[in-house]
């Protein structure tokens, strides 16, 4: 392939693809953190994950229009989405928590459609973007360009990931969340208010997605319908890395980002998404075979 030849002749572009991939992957990893959290604790798959990301983006768009500095709007987006997540839990999610997984998928699917159309009505279908005014870092004589906002997004993802891990390990609520995820009934017996834990977890997930969305609005563009891509990639990352494995999520997120960039470069953008899904299938099949050899089964 000609493009492969370019990478061989000018290795610096490999670095650009790697950097781009890791930075994009960090944002997918954020969405995946939240999904893993909700899946592990509430035992539901949140199809509306991408819509939380989308709404976080709109918070920043409107905050920036009102004069708030874009970077300061990121915690604002997280806060706004925390409240929304909490309200959605109280309105809809609590009813599907102890039911079949399929029911929760259906409910959150309905929520995602509702949120998309509401966003379209309220904000319009136009693409929006916020310029954080940070400029671009140029390396290797201008061959590699890294917009500063992507570095900020990466740092924010890492920071949020670390904060999340610490929160779950050290804080009271974090311990309650872990207890509930291990065995909700037993947690109730020892006095944990599981309903409050579920609400907080769902709201926390929404907040994480909101922060991710805020960063997306500053790095790329947003519109009411872009959420599905994030839902799907978050789901993929969680499936591949496993539920409890937060470090794995970061690693697989970065890996996914890089794989996409390479696929886009070598095969053409039309194969970017298809390649990644193909990769998912290959990984899952390979893992199943490997475990089978050790007489285990993937749960």
């Amino acid at each position: 392939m000609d493009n492969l030849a370019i990478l061989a002749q000018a290795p610096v572009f490999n670095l650009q693809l790697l950097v781009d991939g890791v930075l994009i992957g960090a944002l997918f990893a954020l969405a995946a953190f939240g999904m893993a959290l909700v899946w592990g604790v509430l035992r539901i798959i949140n199809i509306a994950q991408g819509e939380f990301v989308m709404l976080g983006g709109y918070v920043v768009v409107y905050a920036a229009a009102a004069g708030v500095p874009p970077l300061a709007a990121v915690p604002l987006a997280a806060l706004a989405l925390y409240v929304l997540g909490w309200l959605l839990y109280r309105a809809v999610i609590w009813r599907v928590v102890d039911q079949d997984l399929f029911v929760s998928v259906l409910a959150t699917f309905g929520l995602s459609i509702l949120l998309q159309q509401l966003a379209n009505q309220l904000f319009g279908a136009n693409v929006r973007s916020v310029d954080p005014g940070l400029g671009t870092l140029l390396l290797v004589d201008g061959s590699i360009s890294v917009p500063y906002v992507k570095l900020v997004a990466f740092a924010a993802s890492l920071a949020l990931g670390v904060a999340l891990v610490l929160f779950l390990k050290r804080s009271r609520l974090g311990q309650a969340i872990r207890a509930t995820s291990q065995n909700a009934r037993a947690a109730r017996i020892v006095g944990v208010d599981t309903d409050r834990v579920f609400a907080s977890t769902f709201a926390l997930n929404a907040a994480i997605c909101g922060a991710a969305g805020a960063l997306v609005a500053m790095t790329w563009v947003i519109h009411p319908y872009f959420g599905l891509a994030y839902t799907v990639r978050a789901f993929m990352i969680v499936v591949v890395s496993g539920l409890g494995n937060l470090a794995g999520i970061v690693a697989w997120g970065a890996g996914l980002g890089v794989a996409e960039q390479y696929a886009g470069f070598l095969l053409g953008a039309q194969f970017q998404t298809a390649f990644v899904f193909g990769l998912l299938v290959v990984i899952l099949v390979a893992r199943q075979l490997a475990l089978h050899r050790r007489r285990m089964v993937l749960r």
Partner: protein
Amino acid sequence: MHVQRNASRSLMVAGLCAAAAMAASAVQAQEDTITLGAAVSITGKYSTNGKNTLDGYQMAVKRINEMGGVKVGTTTYKLAIKYYDDESTSARGAQLMERLIAQDHVAFVLGPYSSGLTKAIAPVTEKYRIPMVEGNGADRDLFTQGYHYLFAVLNTSDYYLREAVNLLAEQAERIGKKPSDLRIAIAIENDNFSLDVRNGVMEDAAKHGMKVVIDDKLPPELNDMSSTLTKVKALRPDMLVVSGHDKGATLAVRQTSDQKVHVPMLALTHCDSAQVAEKLGAAAEYAVCASQWDRSLNYSDRWFGSANDYAQRFEKEFGYAVPYQSAESTASVLVYADALARAGSLDPQKVRDAIAKTDLMTFYGPVKFDDTGKNIAKSMVLYQVQGGAYKVVAPSRWAQSRLVFPAPRWEERESAKRN
């Protein structure tokens, strides 16, 4: 009991008479109005441009009615639009068209927004032999199906950026290169319209002997062009063509600026509806944009005067700067006004034949249809964003400004800003 029953019966009779009288007067009012039916996207992903389309239709109807309406034979009629929301989905559009024709009995139809919806609706109007004049479905395929009742005032999609390729070839000589030495990169969103734009570009590129070094089709849900732009950096083409509706234009401008990717010419579609100059500022400078129409062109007609007069009137009525989608929608209604007068009848077949013979100058441009229903008299224009404004640079007959080519490198633009 007797008395009550009589009273209620006479009340009922009185009510029926009143209803009949109202119905009669309503029928009479209908006889003085010609209804143009349309399915437009008020909700869904095309809602912004759908509103532009509807506003264009309403603007035309308002103006025509203000000027006295349309004289068909010996009777003067007012125009009215009857529309439904197609929710930006093809299935709904087709359904609504059936309803408009079969239930609401409209005899004349205006097009929806987008080629996809026009493609879904055209078979319905063909089936009922109702003419449709549209201004927002540019797909070349619409005119290869043998439709007799479809007429489009706009240029088809493959024409959007051919002019950019030809402009590039002209400029090649200025920088001492042969056109056949030039290299083009294409990045489009994988939908029908953009594929047509790409095909037009590839055809004209082949005519000049130019090489296409990147040919990426981005999936519609993809929000990121960075792998394509890395390729652009590696391969250094002379022109990057991006077509992906509003999102494509916004992404291309944002990301070429963020990643400091230099291309001598960046050619886009949908710059004005994405408002790249207004929203993205300096990043949009020197981008070349395709457009169906511009208010500075000196076309004019008897309803609106010049293109600029139309633009001012529109802005006053609707409160936003008029995009070309609205202009072409207004032009569609003007075609009907002209054709109805010439047909001298409200029979759909006669009106259809009158439309086919249209040879009309409008503020939007000249309109003359070929056998397939395409408008062969009008040409596309190219803008370049200069100083935050869209300046017409091609075709040379209409150009107000000179093209800046090659676009200055990002480092030069920074230092120019500082100085």
